[in-house]
């Protein structure tokens, strides 16, 4: 291994399906023990990238390593050292929970002597003791996801790839998932996770944002919200804010306005000027009980603003 600290590294990764470019020139490195987020809307190329990293499909061009093994030439080696949980539930519905675990124990060649212990470990980790003899078909989505995670961890992989592990899962299971991810990372396991829930992305050490197969940003959550975010956000609290959406958007200093709950989030290049403009507008209309405050951008704000910048740039072309 060239560098013991690097778990995943890709250079100029490209995947084409016919004329369609699913992943376009992606570069990044993931350090060992990191929780690395791969963020993007549906169809951005997240799953395609993960499948290339797991050795399920080969890239059209570009190079990369996972756990020190080449993603083109050493796919088989990679598969021995990683865990993968696909977006769609892909264990056997007609097997019981325990039979599924048994099956993957066999596939990963876990020695007989250790099997029982590993099985118990997975059942404890996924908290599925009560379901172990139930047919997988009969348990609900959240429990299936826990089982899938358990099976992906059965062989103690050094790197684990989770493709939208929390989509369609209840909030309690989601929180639980992130707790497990944190624990794994503390033990030195590298976690590569895709999601389109921006609130979850806060849990990542570092992340990449991907859109139309292209990387549009990379950094820590903090960097995303400060260095990468070019715009500023003002929160306007006022009665029936929804009626003022168009008027505030019409101001020259305002880039965009969106409703967040009952409040307005105003995106602008210059928070000071925009704040003043909004104040003047509201007072001219005779509104008294309002407040304007500059707030820190959330990851969602960052992502929306990056996507808009991307779309504008590509419209011009």
């Amino acid at each position, binding site marked *: 291994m060239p560098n013991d600290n690097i778990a995943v590294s890709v250079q100029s990764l490209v995947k084409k399906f016919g004329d369609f470019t699913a992943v376009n020139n992606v570069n990044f490195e993931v350090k060992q023990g990191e929780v690395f987020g791969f963020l993007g809307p549906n169809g951005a190329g997240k799953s395609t990238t993960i499948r290339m990293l797991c050795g399920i499909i080969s890239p059209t061009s570009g190079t990369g390593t996972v756990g020190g093994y080449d993603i083109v030439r050493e796919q088989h080696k990679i598969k*021995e050292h990683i865990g993968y949980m696909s977006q769609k539930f892909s264990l056997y519905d*007609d097997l019981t929970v325990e039979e599924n675990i048994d099956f993957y124990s*066999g596939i990963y060649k876990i020695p007989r002597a250790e099997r029982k212990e590993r099985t118990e470990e997975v059942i404890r980790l996924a908290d599925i003791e009560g379901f172990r003899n139930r047919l997988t078909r009969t348990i609900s989505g959240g429990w299936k996801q826990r089982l899938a995670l358990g099976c992906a961890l059965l062989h103690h992989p050094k790197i684990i790839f989770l493709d939208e592990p929390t989509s369609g899962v209840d909030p309690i299971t989601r929180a639980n998932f992130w707790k497990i991810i944190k624990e794994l990372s503390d033990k030195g396991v590298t976690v590569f996770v895709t999601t389109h829930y921006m609130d979850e992305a806060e849990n990542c050490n570092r992340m990449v944002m991907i859109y139309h197969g292209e990387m549009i940003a990379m950094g820590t959550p903090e960097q995303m919200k400060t260095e990468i975010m070019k715009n500023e956000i003002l929160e306007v609290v006022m009665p029936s804010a929804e009626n003022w959406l168009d008027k505030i958007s019409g101001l020259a200093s305002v880039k965009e306005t969106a409703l967040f709950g009952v409040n307005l989030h105003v995106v602008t290049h210059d928070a000071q000027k925009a704040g003043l403009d909004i104040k003047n507008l509201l007072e001219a209309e005779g509104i008294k009980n309002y407040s304007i405050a500059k707030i820190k951008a959330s990851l969602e704000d960052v992502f929306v603003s990056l996507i808009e910048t991307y779309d504008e740039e590509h419209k011009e072309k």
Partner: protein
Amino acid sequence: MNFKRIWAISSKEFIQIKRDPRSLALAIVIPVLLLIIFGYGLSLDIDRVRTVVWNQDASSELTRNFLLNFKYSKYFKITRYTDNYRDIEHMIDSGEVMMALVIPKDFSHYLESGKKAPLQLLVDGSDSNTATIAAGYVRAVVAKYNVELLTQAFAAHGYTLPKPVDMRSRIWFNPGLNSRWYIIPGVIAMIIMIIAALLTSICISREWERGTMEQLISTPVKPPELVIGKFLPYFAIGFFDLFVAVVMARTVFGVPFQGSYLLLILLSVFFLTGALSQGILISASSKTQLLASQLATLTTFIPTMLLSGFIYPIFNMPQAVQAITYLIPARYYIVILRGLFLKGNGMDVMWDEALFLVLFAFLMFSIAIRKFKKKVF
């Protein structure tokens, strides 16, 4: 290749078969059903040909004696007597009878006065094969009657007729010429081909359809491990079916088994391997269970039924079709099964068929693994 992985796949597959009543039924009920349908339903023997008789000369004892030759033959069954052509026509039209015998009113008179006595036979030719055979039976009965008449006539004048050719036939292997003995080994080949190809074709496309293949191909499992792991349970089912079929053939249908059971097992291993591999090849070429099972039926059931010599003798086929039959593995297996069941053949006369089966097995197996590798990994 790792035995632990192969075993994990096989055990999983066994559990799935156990839990899926449809594939279990397919594996156990279908062979029994096919044997019963073909064993009882498909008989190539033509006997008890339904016949209507119009004896216009019924008052004569001679005609009544003549008819006894038909009445006591197992090949005919006189179902009705009539006295007009309208009835005969109707009965042949409706399929109530296969043929009609009409004895004219001067029949005994002509015979006694030494003139040629005409006899009319009407046969339903819409089933030409049966019609030819039935008419042949009648011809044989009449020829025998003629010889008797001549012998009597000569004897009346004090002469003895020179003995005509006396053919003594001995039918080997199937002295009763029971067509069931000929059909059952073919049914066994068909059952194994269909069950093997059909079950395996479903077992892999099911993994695609349900998305379970996605997880499986992210593990270090290798194509030969997966193929062999899938193989074993169906191999066991195939042998179970063979066992059931052979036992049924022996007990229910009374087909003798003259050959070596060891040879039967050995050669069946190759046939089964080829058939299972064919199913896997089909699976690798289609990602839905429906398409796979249709392809499996199309490429196993129909060729095995029509082109293997199961029912229709290969030497009767046009040259071009005969050439195709060399590609049908059941062709060789059926020859082997008939040889083992009826003739008690050994490898000395079956080595060429056995060689083709071995070739088929290895070819299919390696193509299946290669195709699977390309498609998945």
